[in-house]
């Protein structure tokens, strides 16, 4: 087990003739702590899989270097990096039994047969596969096969990290939850570094201690689920995490206070009023509420989601979403809304402006 | 790893050598051929090709071959389509036996059928017509087409059919408007195989024709025996028979990698 470090890593796939290379992965410098559970979260095509394949060595980055526990591995082949990886579609060796599948990585490395038996039995126990060891792997369901893929990583004792590339894509919804808790449990039991790629925020937030949000080839924020929710560093994180996503509204500044559509907002902090560029405020729907005085809005839509309601309102050209308690009445006449000062964030050119909340 | 290209390259070289021999001979005069071996034509001549393109018995041979091959491909694929659909979607009395019986016809040596075919097609007065050859080739091409198409169709989820029926499509409208476009790749591969086997088969084609529908390949064998040893002419005619095949391969080249897996690997 070891710490993984990225130093100025960039990657571009070979460009078409006569075209400038397009970076699938923009510059990333990042340290993955030993024993951490990380989730790489982002929309399709944001560079998550590229990043994962660079860690496992299936791809060599065009620039930068990767270090495992301080030693350079950038050009080392996959087999020598001691990485395990679970793919989106379950990979099992169809002709082998479950037992032989699990034993395969050990036998390839010349481990003694007695030790192989011991490890396989142990891991099969952990994954609830013990009663199916002598079955042909081809006959298992998708979640069983995915467990085998995972098991082939776990049996090895030299593994530095286990990488997951959207491993639950082909699993039935009710089994997804089970398998995810199994992963979490395993992580707590064996404390191995795990990096989990997904585009599903629920998966990411429930699995990981730290979530790495990626957008357009770059890492935009690394943080705990709570940090990502409360203090998104980039408007994309605000949109992407939370349901519904954060409201991002254009604003101006007046004496260090944000002004939205001629309404001076009370934010409890002050910033320099000479900020240039595109200025926006970010406010989560959870922190918008109806009030007696505030910004006048027109109600467009009310969705009742059971435990709460999502209300879409409009002020001039801007649409604002708000989360309102189930039993809370929605004012029928000239409704007004206000934003919770503590959770009002300011963005300059999509990046959060550092502010000190009182 | 980088040495990998050697084997395919050597293999292709091996494939090309006899073809080169044929081509090079087709540009030689008879005297030069019989005079001894030469790697390149010494007196380059197009005489052999000119002869073929001006003599009706020669070029009609090509036309005859192409007519019955295309006829056979159309017949085979169009009757195989509904049958393959039936085998891939429905269970019916005797379906498995029928399928196996169809395949056994692919295993029948053409030599076994040569004489009975001659008698049969003479009796129904189709002897020496393009249709006779096209129908005779159905013997092995239909089973093959059914087999290939069934594989492709089994790969298409049944929900496609059910959705279409729910949307109010009649069977034939669904089949022609939706299903056939969906398995276009499969049809391409099936047609390729039918074309191939019909184009290259000679025994039955020769047996069932005498003058009006005589295939090019049969004309070549006759020439070889009647007009002496005109190797140059034979080589030119042979070279020309490669062209239709090359065309067909060129058109299906993108299907080859996927399509040859017959849809259900």
């Amino acid at each position: 087990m070891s710490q993984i470090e990225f130093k100025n890593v960039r990657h571009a796939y070979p460009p078409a003739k006569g075209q400038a290379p397009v970076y699938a992965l923009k510059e990333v410098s990042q340290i993955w702590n030993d024993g951490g559970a990380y989730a790489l979260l982002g929309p399709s095509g944001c560079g998550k899989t590229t990043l994962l394949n660079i860690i496992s060595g299936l791809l060599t980055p065009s620039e930068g270097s990767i270090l495992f526990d301080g030693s350079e591995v950038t050009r080392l082949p996959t087999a020598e990096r001691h990485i395990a990886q679970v793919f989106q579609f379950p990979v099992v060796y169809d002709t082998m039994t479950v037992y032989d599948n699990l034993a395969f990585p050990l036998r390839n490395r010349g481990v003694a047969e007695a030790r192989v038996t011991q490890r396989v039995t142990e891991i099969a126990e952990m994954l609830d596969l013990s009663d199916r060891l002598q079955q042909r792997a081809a006959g298992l369901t998708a979640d069983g096969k995915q467990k085998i893929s995972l098991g082939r990583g776990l049996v090895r004792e030299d593994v530095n990290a286990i990488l997951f590339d959207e491993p639950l894509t082909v699993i039935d919804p009710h089994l997804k939850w089970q398998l995810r808790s199994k992963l979490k449990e395993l992580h707590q039991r064996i404390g191995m570094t795990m990096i989990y790629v997904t585009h599903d925020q629920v998966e990411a937030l429930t699995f990981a201690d730290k979530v790495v949000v990626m957008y357009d080839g770059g890492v935009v924020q690394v943080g705990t689920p709570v940090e990502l929710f409360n203090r998104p560093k980039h408007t994309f994180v605000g949109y992407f995490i939370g349901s519904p996503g954060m409201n991002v509204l254009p604003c101006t500044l007046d004496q260090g206070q944000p002004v939205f559509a001629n309404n001076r907002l009370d934010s409890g902090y002050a910033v320099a009023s000479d900020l240039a560029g595109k200025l926006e405020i970010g406010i989560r729907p959870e922190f918008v509420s109806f009030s007696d005085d505030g910004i006048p809005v027109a109600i467009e839509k009310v969705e009742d989601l059971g435990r709460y309601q999502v209300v879409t309102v409009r002020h001039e050209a801007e649409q604002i979403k708000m989360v309102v308690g189930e039993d809370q009445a929605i004012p029928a006449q000239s409704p007004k809304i206000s934003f919770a000062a503590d959770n009002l964030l300011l963005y300059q050119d999509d990046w959060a402006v550092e502010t000190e909340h009182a | 790893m980088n040495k990998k290209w050697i084997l395919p390259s050597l293999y292709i070289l091996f494939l090309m050598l006899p073809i080169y021999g044929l081509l090079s001979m087709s540009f030689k005069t008879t005297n030069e051929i019989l005079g001894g071996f030469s790697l390149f034509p010494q007196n380059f001549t197009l005489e052999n090709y000119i002869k073929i393109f001006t003599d009706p018995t020669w070029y009609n041979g090509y036309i005859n071959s192409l007519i019955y091959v295309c006829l056979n491909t159309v017949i085979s694929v169009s009757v195989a389509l509904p049958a393959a659909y039936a085998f891939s979607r429905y269970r019916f009395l005797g379906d498995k036996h029928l399928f196996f019986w169809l395949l056994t016809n692919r295993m029948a040596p053409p030599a076994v059928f040569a004489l009975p075919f001659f008698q049969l097609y003479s009796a129904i007065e189709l002897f020496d017509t393009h249709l006779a050859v096209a129908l005779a080739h159905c013997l092995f091409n239909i089973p093959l087409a059914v087999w290939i198409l069934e594989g492709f169709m089994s790969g298409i989820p049944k929900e496609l059919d059910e959705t279409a029926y729910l949307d109010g499509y009649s069977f034939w409208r669904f089949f022609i408007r939706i299903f056939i476009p969906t398995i276009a790749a499969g049809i391409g591969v099936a047609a390729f195989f039918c074309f191939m086997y019909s184009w290259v088969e000679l025994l039955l084609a020769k047996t069932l024709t005498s003058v009006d529908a005589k295939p090019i390949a049969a004309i070549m064998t006759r020439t070889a025996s009647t007009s002496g040893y005109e190797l140059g002419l034979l080589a030119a005619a042979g070279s020309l028979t490669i062209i239709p095949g090359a065309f067909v391969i060129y058109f299906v080249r993108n299907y080859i990698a996927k399509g040859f897996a017959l849809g259900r690997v």
Partner: protein
Amino acid sequence: MRKTTNQKAWWLVTPVLLLVAFNAFIPLMTVVNYAFQETFGNNQFFWEGTTWFEKVLRSERFHDALGRQMLFTSMILVIEVPLGIAVALSMPRKGPWVSVCLVLMALPLLIPWNVVGAMWNIFALPDIGLLGYSLNSMGFDYNFTRQPVSAWMTTVVMDVWHWTSLVVLLCYAGLCSIPDAYYQAAHIDGASPWAVFRYIQLPKMKRVLTIAILLRFMDSFMIYTEPFVLTGGGPGNTTTFLSIDLVKIALGQFDLGPAAAMSLIYFLVVLLICWVFYTVMMRNEEQ
């Protein structure tokens, strides 16, 4: 796939049934008719029972032809299948060369069979053919029209030339259908190239390989045109395979009874071997 029982499906199969039955049933009956009877023309037949079958089964000529056929087919399979797999494995997966390779490799498959024979005849002629001339000038004594061994070698090499591409194309298609993740996983599991072949590529190619072997078996067992044009079955009878012998008896000597009996035996042999092969493969699949 779950199938629904529907007897109306017979209507969809009817055209195929009629066309194939017309081509298969009537001629087969004709053959059966000849096989059990003697005719002197004029549509007069005399019942002969199994006389012809006994005669064929006892004849040394049939045994020899069958033996040669078996030897030829086994040689073909032993050479073409491994060679085909090897070429398919070393082909590039992507890039501009793929189409070029595929098109060039498929070329021999689409050349009329007698042209293949003629082409190899020209290619192998000892004095003026590229192959024959080269071999002889390198000091080998090679003449396929006179030496049985040369004739055999030429016939086998011709068939390898003609049909290995079918095995290559089928295997290549099978290989292309393997997702990249399998190779990556094997890489991570530290599998050797042999293990990758044994546990990933071979299992995934099994289906297409079955098809390839079946097709190659059937076609090589029924081979007629190419060796007939190349060697005419000679020198002597050394390359007279079953089909060539059959046509000689039926059309050359017009011995319709024995020819018909031989046809049926021949057909049954092909059927039997295919059935055994098919059953064994299917049983393996189920396990």
